[in-house]
């Protein structure tokens, strides 16, 4: 893209979907990894290996949470390495993708 490289910076986008109950644990792992920014969407539904989850189910209210995290490549590596062993316990999904950060000041 013809945008000046001062405006755009290559970063990694990490997206995690887990059981909302495990959210606090996950966030504390992230804090241990010195993460300084993330975004959380709660009351999310889904289907996975543990069956269907519906945040509004009358009897089995089981919400997921989505966490989105933008960070530099080496930090992404660190985070994934830290999360990897715990992810089986948490269940859910964790994906990485490339992105470009537009403000010159990455966190």
């Amino acid at each position: 893209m013809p945008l000046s490289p001062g405006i755009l910076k290559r970063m990694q986008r990490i997206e995690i979907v887990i059981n909302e109950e495990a959210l606090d644990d996950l966030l504390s792992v992230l804090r241990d990894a010195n993460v300084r920014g993330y975004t959380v969407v709660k009351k999310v539904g889904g289907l996975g290996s543990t069956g269907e989850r519906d945040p509004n189910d009358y009897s089995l209210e089981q919400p997921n949470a989505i966490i989105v995290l933008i960070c530099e490549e080496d930090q992404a590596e660190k985070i994934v390495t830290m999360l990897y062993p715990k992810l089986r316990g948490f269940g859910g999904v964790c994906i990485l993708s490339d992105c470009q950060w537009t403000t010159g000041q990455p966190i």
Partner: protein
Amino acid sequence: MSLSSLLVPAILFFALGMFACLIKSDLKFPPDMHKMIVIYLLIGIGLHGGKELAAANMADAISAVYAAFAFGIILPIIAYIILRVIGRIDPLNAAAISAHYGSVSAGTYMTAVAFLAGIGVTYEAYPVIMLAIMESPAIMIGLVLAGYSRRALGGESKNQKGMMKHLLLDAFTNGSILLLFGSMAIGWVISEPSYKKIEPFFELIFMGALCIFLCDMGMEAGRRISEFRSVGFFLVGFGIVMPLIGAAFGLTVGHFMLGYSIGGITLVTVLAASCSYIAVPPAMKLAVPEANPSFYLTLSLGVTFPFNIVIGIPMYYAAAQYLHETYYPWF
């Protein structure tokens, strides 16, 4: 008992909800509204029960506790046997479904209370303790049955003890049960003038709020009932027969052993005949993840709950009336 006793607003609103679902109306109550009304109703029922208990007889209260435990243990075992022997349902699903039938449905209980109030029948204070107690033993029995099934299937027996402890704790810290017990305790200790201050909120407008709750439950039941195909005819039949078996126990215990009035017998019968959709489903999802939730939820919310609301309660009342007028209690 005339037809007009069926025209209790609470039951009519339940029917309205089912009708709305049937004609595929876009009527939908906000999910948080459901949670809020449940919170309100549980507190209301707990406070009322607590206040009555404060004036009640301890020995009688303890008999009620025994009865609650007996129901919670015996009914799931009967349910399990029927499901396994007659229905040839696989063991883990059978265990999960059974646990629901040892437990109770606060919604059914409250509808029964509305029904009795509508026809001007009084009742004892003890059934409300049974309501609060009956969730836990059923969950335990469900777990025992699942453990037994797993061993029978030759699978590893899992950490049965740890799970038991965990579930026992969960059953105690479960929000709904805590709310019920907590407000029962509050109703117990507060003074009469204090109670008078909060009575308008928790009693005066209770029946109206129950109508909205049941309208919502009617929609939920309608949604679930449409899945009965995936559940199979045997299970649907089970969802109607099992409450009748529970009711037979309830009538016997309520009349012959506890010696309650007609209203009290009706409530005990409703407790025995009803089936949980609040505390047991999440416990079973955790404890028996191999079981299919759509089985026990369809049965509980789509079959047994509407059956009890529309047909069961008046029937149990009629039976209680008959028993009470025909036989003496044993004690």
